[in-house]
């Protein structure tokens, strides 16, 4: 029913109802007027009835109206509401909404058409949405294409977008490899990310491969049912069932495949395929763009890296680092696994650096030029690219590297190939690749660049090396400058000090900096007196070095400096600076001076000796072993008439030819160091006459003990005989004189000589004077000093002596022999008197003695008492009345005066006597002079020798080359070889038993530095610790010629020290023992003693008690005895010891005090050592006592002679003095303890000595003569009994 009809119906119903109701309301009003009365009075009754009808009718109408209105509203609003909602839903996008209205009216059709419209709307909306999605997806894809420059990233984004947009589980992109043989997964959303780059399919393989081959999409709803499907395990794609694969096409070629996959079986729609195709186009262009970009980027990158490389390698100056850097950067630049740089050295390529290769590479053997890839490249100078190095032969392969692609280029600096750089195994996108033309180009650039950089670095390295050398040299110079043991000063042209080393400070007395910059005269400060101005200026001027010695003073001592100036030239040749070297040569100069003075002394001595030889009456001739004359004295000229000039260096001319064989024999004997005395033979004079001569021939021995010549003293005995005959006739005295002088010549001991002289003068056999005094000129004090007097003390004495002499029939010769061999007594009255005489002989002295000295003439005083020139005191002292004075002339100088008189027989002194005396005097003078000289020399020599020999340290001299030149006794003893087998050998052989210099020995240091060194050396060869000092020996010119070594065995000292400590400890122990003994033994003694007394006096039980006490005490006493060692006797411990050594030690101890007392020590040892069993300490004590006694017996000086020799059974030690001697009484008590004649001393000395000798089972003998001296002889058995 339509809405119109329905409305009409309603309206009709409504009107009819209204009419009915109205009618009824009217009718009802008339019927119903009889309503109950009462309530409404009167008139109401009717009204009421009307109203009631009216109201009711109205009510019905109203109700009807309301009903219709409500019904109508209900009927319209429902569909309208639906429609309204529908349009709202559509508006909201709910295109699925439909109005569900089952009406057949207009609303029904309205709803139907609404629904239709909604459906249409929904469809078009969906279509729109898909389109939008697609275009959004494409937009995103193209955004993705532009969002990144890296293809991987782009593809990755695309897969993600596609998967999400297309609402698929997987989207993947496979691209062809460069060789276009296979497809590799490049990006995926949904598959395992690790499969990217590894998942690989050949063309045609699997669905993807099929799509690529067919170049058309392949859609599979369920791969399980598709035989083409190939599952790639690495992608973990098993759970995906549907697969859509689309080729990515670009300009007709297939670049790869894009796939989508979903978990459920799904049939891909054409739209999806189309859409994906659209996307695949985009991917295709993206790939192309990316590749294009990649290639540009790669080019750019290479350019940049090349640039960087260039920058980098040009900034590296360290060659090693540079090479390594080049390797690394090049390998990285070209994506190579490793790189090697080889440089050409000689004919080979040496690996210098590598990168990315195993560590062994550096040690690979060098390649020869032309060998291997690098060798070819280096030789041909052009790049070589090898795709498969394995085919090239084994020798190019780097160990541990599977070399596939290799690219090597030459390192070319200019036209020169200096090496190669090789790259190994190019990698591209994680896969092996080969080097392309780009790479070769790049590498060539790198090669050129690197070569230049390498050359630069090499240059730099050389430069740096040179620089460091220069710096080192500078440093060296600086060190030298400061450490040199001499002053160094440099001076500029302005003569200002430029620099000076610290050594200079010692002379300028202040900081060296204080003179820098000042004029060089400022160097002179204080008093040193160094002014280098002049030599410096000269060196500047001439350019020549200049060396001068300057003398100055320093702290008051002379200072000698050697100043040397050297020019320092600038490169231009101009002198820029002058260097001054200052060397302190004070020590050298001093030692030179000492040497010179020593030398002059020696030469003076030599001169004396020469004059002695010259002045001798005998011919003294020396020849070499071939008989050539080396010296020829005046005596020889006199005897043989040849002058020295005629014969020197010529064969000796005086040998008669018939004697030559005999002379040759003589020479042979002399060669064996024998001396031939007083051979009477014949010689020929210059005029050919033969003369009889007495010849004494002795060897001339050089310092090494070799016989180098013959010295002959010949005396013209024909002359002598003639003279004798003459003298027999006229003057017997001359023979005496000759004899005397001969005798005198036999000794050089001054005292003996004087004694001989005076004895000769006083002997009746001689000159026959009664008394003689010898006075010596002391030119310093200008006095005549009495030396010796000979003659009887009184008349009685004179008669007694003469009588004795007559009885003994002693000839002059006997007496002389005695004097020569026996100790000299100096006790006579006259001698003592003589020694006290001191007579002034100054210019103002006018005594007769002074006159004799001044006028050099003999003087005969016949009446002393009346002669005014004679000193009365002298006369009184000597008791003389007539005497003669003879000056003793040596080289025209008065050296002394001989005084004689005949006091006792009063024989007048004649002029003949005087003449004879004068002649004698000359002999005496020269003899005295030479004896004095000899004494001096021998004293000094003996002293030196004594010191040298008595040093218990080993002392030896070495030359520069370790040859031993001289050794002392200590060395001989220590080494145990005779001196002859030590001297001349190398010191290290002798001392250390090795055949090369001992490294600890300071000798070489001394030789090198010229300084003394002391080292403590432990020497296993000699067995001990030695303190070895080595000091330089210089010759006269200051040249170092050797060293003197003093080697002290300090191991002994150490041992001794330990011993001493032990002894001290023992002594302390002993002292304690003594105390204990005292404290215990005394009471024990008294207890025991009294117990014994009681024991004797008691009886019975008490006696037993006493006995017990005695026994106990006895036991205790014996115990004490045992403990304290009382049982022992005084003991000596006999061990073999060298008595010579002991004696030497003792006398060396005494040497200083003996010298002080003017006591000469003589040693007469039969042998250099004599071993006997002895207790060395006790023997030392005993011998020391003897020497002490001897020296105390000679307060005025004298001679101690020590002798050691051997008899059959005993060693004999003799100590002989020339002291006072002893009286009988003294002798008797000599060995009594506490007996002494001296003011000091214990009196125990000789008692001890005797006791010691007795303990050695030896004996001691004394021989003494008052005024002559004493000799003690000790006999020690050679063997222990």
């Amino acid at each position, binding site marked *: 029913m339509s809405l119109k009809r329905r409305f009409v119906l309603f309206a009709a119903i409504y009107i009819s109802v209204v009419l009915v109701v109205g009618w009824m309301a009217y009718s009802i009003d008339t019927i119903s007027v009889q309503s109950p009365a009462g309530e409404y009075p009167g008139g109401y009754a009717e009204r009421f009835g009307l109203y009631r009808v009216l109201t009711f009718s109205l009510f019905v109408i109203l109700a009807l109206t309301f009903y219709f209105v409500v019904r109508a509203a209900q009927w319209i609003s429902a569909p309208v509401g639906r429609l309204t909602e529908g349009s709202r839903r559509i508006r909201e996008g709910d295109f699925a909404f439909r109005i569900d209205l089952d009406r057949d009216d207009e609303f029904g059709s309205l709803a139907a058409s609404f629904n239709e419209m909604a459906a249409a709307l929904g469809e078009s909306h969906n279509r729109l949405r898909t389109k939008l999605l697609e275009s959004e997806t494409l937009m995103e894809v193209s955004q993705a294409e532009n969002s990144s420059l890296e293809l991987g990233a782009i593809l990755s984004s695309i897969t993600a977008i596609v998967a999400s947009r297309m609402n698929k589980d997987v989207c993947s992109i496979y691209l062809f490899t460069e060789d276009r043989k296979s497809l590799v997964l490049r990006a995926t959303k949904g598959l395992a990310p690790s499969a990217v780059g590894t998942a690989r399919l050949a063309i045609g393989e699997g669905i993807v491969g099929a799509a690529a081959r067919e170049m058309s999409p392949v859609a599979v709803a369920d791969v399980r049912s598709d035989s083409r499907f190939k599952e790639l395990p690495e992608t973990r794609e098993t759970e995906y069932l549907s697969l859509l694969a689309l080729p990515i096409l670009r300009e007709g070629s297939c670049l790869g495949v894009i796939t989508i996959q979903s978990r459920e079986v799904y049939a891909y729609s054409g739209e999806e395929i189309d859409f994906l195709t659209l996307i695949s186009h985009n991917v295709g262009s993206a790939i192309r763009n990316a590749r294009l970009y990649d290639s540009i980027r790669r080019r750019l990158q290479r350019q940049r890296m090349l640039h960087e490389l260039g920058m980098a390698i040009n900034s590296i100056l360290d060659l090693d680092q540079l090479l390594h850097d080049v390797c690394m950067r090049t390998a990285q630049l070209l994506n190579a696994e490793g790189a090697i740089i080889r440089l050409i050295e000689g004919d080979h390529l040496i690996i210098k650096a590598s990168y990315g290769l195993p560590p062994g590479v550096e040690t690979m053997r060098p390649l020869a030029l032309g060998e291997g890839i690098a060798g070819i490249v280096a030789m041909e100078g052009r790049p070589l690219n090898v795709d498969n190095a394995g085919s090239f032969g084994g020798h190019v392969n780097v160990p541990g590297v599977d070399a596939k692609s290799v690219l090597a280029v030459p390192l070319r600096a200019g036209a020169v190939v200096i090496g190669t750089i090789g790259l190994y195994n190019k990698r591209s996108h994680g896969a092996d690749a080969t080097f392309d033309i780009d790479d070769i180009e790049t590498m060539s650039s790198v090669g050129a660049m690197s070569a230049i950089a390498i050359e630069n670095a090499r240059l730099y390295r050389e430069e740096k090396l040179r620089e460091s050398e220069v710096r080192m040299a500078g440093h060296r110079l600086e060190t030298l400058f400061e450490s040199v043991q001499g002053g160094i000063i440099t001076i500029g042209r302005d003569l200002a000090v430029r620099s000076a080393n610290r050594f200079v400070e010692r002379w300028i007395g202040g900081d060296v900096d204080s003179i820098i910059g000042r004029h060089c005269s400022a160097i002179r400060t204080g008093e040193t007196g160094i002014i280098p101005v002049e030599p410096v200026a000269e060196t500047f001027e001439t350019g020549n070095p200049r060396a001068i010695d300057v003398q100055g003073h320093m702290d008051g001592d002379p200072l000698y400096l050697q100043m040397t100036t050297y020019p320092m030239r600038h490169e231009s040749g101009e002198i820029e600076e002058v260097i001054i070297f200052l060397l302190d040569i004070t020590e050298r100069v001093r030692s030179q001076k000492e040497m010179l003075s020593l030398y002059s002394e020696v030469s003076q001595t030599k001169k004396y000796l020469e004059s002695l030889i010259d002045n001798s009456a005998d011919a003294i001739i020396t020849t070499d072993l071939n008989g050539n004359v080396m010296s020829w004295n005046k005596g020889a000229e006199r005897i043989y008439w040849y002058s020295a000039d005629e014969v020197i260096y010529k064969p000796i001319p005086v040998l008669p030819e018939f004697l030559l064989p005999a002379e040759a024999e003589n020479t042979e004997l002399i060669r064996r160091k024998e001396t031939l005395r007083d051979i009477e033979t014949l010689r020929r004079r210059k005029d050919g006459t033969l003369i009889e001569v007495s010849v004494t021939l002795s060897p001339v021995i050089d310092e090494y003990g070799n016989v180098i010549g013959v010295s002959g003293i010949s005396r013209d005995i024909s002359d002598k005989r003639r003279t004798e005959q003459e003298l027999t006739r006229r003057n017997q005295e001359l023979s005496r004189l000759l004899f005397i002088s001969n005798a005198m010549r036999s000794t050089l001991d001054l005292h003996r000589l004087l004694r001989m002289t005076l004895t000769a003068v006083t002997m009746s056999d001689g000159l026959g004077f009664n008394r003689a005094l010898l006075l010596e000129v002391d030119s310093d004090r200008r006095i005549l000093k009495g030396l010796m007097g000979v003659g009887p003390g009184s008349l009685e004495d004179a008669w007694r002596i003469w009588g004795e002499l007559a009885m003994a029939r002693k000839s002059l010769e006997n007496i002389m022999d005695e004097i020569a061999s026996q100790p000299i007594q100096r006790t006579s009255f006259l001698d003592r008197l003589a020694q006290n005489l001191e007579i002034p002989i100054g210019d103002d002295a006018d005594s007769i003695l002074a006159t004799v000295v001044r006028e050099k003439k003999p003087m005969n005083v016949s009446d002393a008492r009346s002669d005014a020139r004679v000193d009365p005191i002298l006369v009184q002292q000597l008791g003389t009345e007539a005497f003669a004075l003879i000056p003793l002339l040596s080289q025209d100088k008065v050296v002394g005066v001989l005084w004689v008189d005949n006091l006792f027989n009063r024989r007048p002194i004649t002029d003949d006597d005087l003449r004879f005396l004068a002649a004698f005097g000359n002999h005496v003078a020269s003899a005295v002079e030479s004896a004095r000289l000899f004494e001096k020399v021998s004293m000094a020599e003996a002293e030196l020798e004594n010191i040298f020999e008595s040093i218990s340290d080993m002392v030896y001299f070495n030359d520069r080359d370790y040859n031993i030149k001289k050794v002392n006794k200590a060395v001989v003893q220590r080494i145990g070889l005779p001196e002859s087998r030590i001297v001349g050998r190398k010191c290290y052989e002798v001392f250390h038993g090795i055949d090369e210099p001992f490294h600890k020995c300071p000798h070489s240091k001394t030789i090198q530095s010229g300084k003394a060194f002391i080292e403590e050396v432990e020497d296993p060869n000699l067995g001990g610790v030695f303190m070895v000092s080595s000091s330089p020996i210089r010759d006269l010119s200051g040249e170092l010629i050797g060293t003197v070594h003093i080697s002290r065995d300090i191991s002994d000292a150490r041992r001794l020290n330990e011993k001493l400590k032990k002894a001290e400890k023992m002594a302390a122990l002993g002292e304690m*023992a*003594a105390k204990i*003994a*005292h404290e*215990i*033994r*005394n*009471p*024990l*003694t*008294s*207890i*025991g*003693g*009294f*117990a*014994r*007394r009681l024991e004797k006096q008691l009886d019975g039980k008490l006696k037993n008690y006493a006995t017990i006490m*005695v026994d106990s*005490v*006895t036991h205790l*006493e014996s115990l004490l*005895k045992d403990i*304290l*060692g*009382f049982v*022992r*006797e*005084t003991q000596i411990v006999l061990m073999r010891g060298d008595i010579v050594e002991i004696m030497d030690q003792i006398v060396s101890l005494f040497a200083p005090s003996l010298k002080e007392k003017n006591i000469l020590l003589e040693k007469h040892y039969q042998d250099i050592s004599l071993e006997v069993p002895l207790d060395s300490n006790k023997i030392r*004590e005993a011998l020391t006592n003897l020497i002490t006694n001897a020296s105390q017996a000679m307060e005025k000086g004298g001679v101690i002679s020590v002798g050691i020799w051997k008899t059959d059974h005993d060693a004999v030690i003799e100590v002989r003095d020339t002291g006072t001697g002893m009286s009988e009484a003294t002798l008797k*008590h000599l060995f*009594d*303890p*506490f*007996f002494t004649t001296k003011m000091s001393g*214990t*009196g*125990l000395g000789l*008692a*001890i000595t005797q*006791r010691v000798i007795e303990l050695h089972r030896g004996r001691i003998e004394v021989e003494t003569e008052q005024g002559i001296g004493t000799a003690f002889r000790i006999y020690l058995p050679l063997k222990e009994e």
Partner: protein
Amino acid sequence: MMKILVVDDDKRIQLLYQAELEEEGYEVFIAGSGSEAIEMFDTVNPDLVTLDILMPDIDGIQVLRKMKEKNPLLPVIMSTAYDYRDDFAVWASEAYLVKSSDLAELKLTIKKLIGGP
């Protein structure tokens, strides 16, 4: 009667020696110290001296020396508690005895040196 001077600082020893030597028939004099011994030496003029060494004032060696200086021939017996025989000084004495409670050796030595009393 022979006179013996006993020099010892120990009273008990003095008593013992005196008793024993007097019993032997000698005249015994006692000196209790070195200085006393030197003092007594001249007045007593002994025929023999027994001499201790370790004494408080002057030791026996000094005493020996003084006595020997005065009379070198005087027999002196060193009688000590300790062995000093290594000391050269005591060699000047005629005998050296280490003290013992048995005086037989001492008596024998005295007899040898100066004969009976």
